[in-house]
């Protein structure tokens, strides 16, 4: 197995990179563009917001080569299925693509998903032909329900959005991986490159992050670190790690020792 042939397929589309990145919280659009480039990501998330009439002439999309990236519009800030569905319909009209990152939040403090509203929205969106990638709890039952509804992937959180706490419950992620067939992408919670590698070593199909890169002291360097971590984690998973043992096992031959 080599990295070159190990493609990620979502909604019938093939991607070489397993790192997906957000475009929020950067210091400037130039910085966003450079970080995206360095991350190697092919799928990037965007938010849908009202056009501001007092805006400057520049917008994020002036800095992004749409031939290089697949836009994944999100429903960030939506707390009901109705608002999320409405946002997705607008996103499809604005972006001419069916891909959506569906998030329906339950609470401003935790930004945890409202799974009931999430399932309701997912059902409507799948019926309308969207390729739905839902941000969800790290709960296998919810993930299975999302898969059964026809979502193209499931995106359980590693930890709260923007928290940088890492993969807080790797066992839950493992249970999800063993019980759903669609790609499992850890979305939210990654803080450092090792967190991303852990997600990939668990067997996840990809990792989605924003804050860990955008709010790092050097976002461009962190984007590269994340790119390498996702590649390394994936290769490590595919290569198959050694079993953990309590005691030592010498790496050098025991025969031929002097004396």
């Amino acid at each position, binding site marked *: 197995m080599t990295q070159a042939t190990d493609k990620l397929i979502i909604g019938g589309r093939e991607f070489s990179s397993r790192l997906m990145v*957000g*475009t*929020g*919280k*950067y210091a400037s659009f130039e910085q*966003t563009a450079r970080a995206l480039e360095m991350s190697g990501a092919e799928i990037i*998330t*965007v*938010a*849908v*917001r*009202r*056009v501001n*009439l007092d805006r400057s002439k520049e*917008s*994020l*999309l002036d800095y992004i080569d749409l031939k290089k990236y697949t*836009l994944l*519009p*999100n429903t*960030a800030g939506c707390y009901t299925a109705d608002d999320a569905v*409405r946002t997705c*319909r*607008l*996103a*499809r*009209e*604005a*972006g001419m693509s069916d891909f959506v990152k569906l998030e329906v939040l339950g609470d401003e403090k935790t930004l945890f998903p409202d799974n009931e509203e999430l399932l309701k929205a997912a059902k409507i969106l799948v019926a309308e032909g969207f390729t739905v990638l839902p941000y969800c709890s790290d709960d296998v039952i919810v993930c299975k329900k999302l898969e059964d509804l026809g979502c193209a992937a499931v995106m359980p959180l590693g930890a709260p*959005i*923007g928290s940088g706490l890492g993969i807080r419950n790797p066992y839950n992620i493992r249970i999800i991986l063993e019980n759903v067939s669609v790609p499992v992408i850890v979305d*939210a919670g990654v803080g450092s490159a090792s967190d991303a590698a852990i997600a990939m070593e668990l067997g996840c199909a990809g990792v989605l*992050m*924003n*804050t860990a890169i955008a709010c790092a002291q050097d976002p461009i360097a962190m984007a590269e670190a994340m790119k390498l971590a996702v590649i390394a984690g994936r290769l490590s998973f595919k290569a198959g790690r050694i079993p953990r043992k309590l005691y030592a096992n010498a790496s050098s031959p025991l025969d031929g020792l002097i004396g």
Partner: protein
Amino acid sequence: MQIVMNGDPIEIVAGSSIESLLKQLDISRERVAVELNADIVPKAGYEKQLLSDGDKIEIVHFVGGG
């Protein structure tokens, strides 16, 4: 005449279509989506769709997000 755009009342030329409103506001049609009284207006309908006094219109676009 007056319409409500993105939550704020604005004065526009009577008889404006969505196409002409976007031009008046200097907004590129390619990168936005428009909702008129809670229904999405497909891009192909921007020229045909005329606005009436009191209409509620939402014009959205993509911004940075996670």
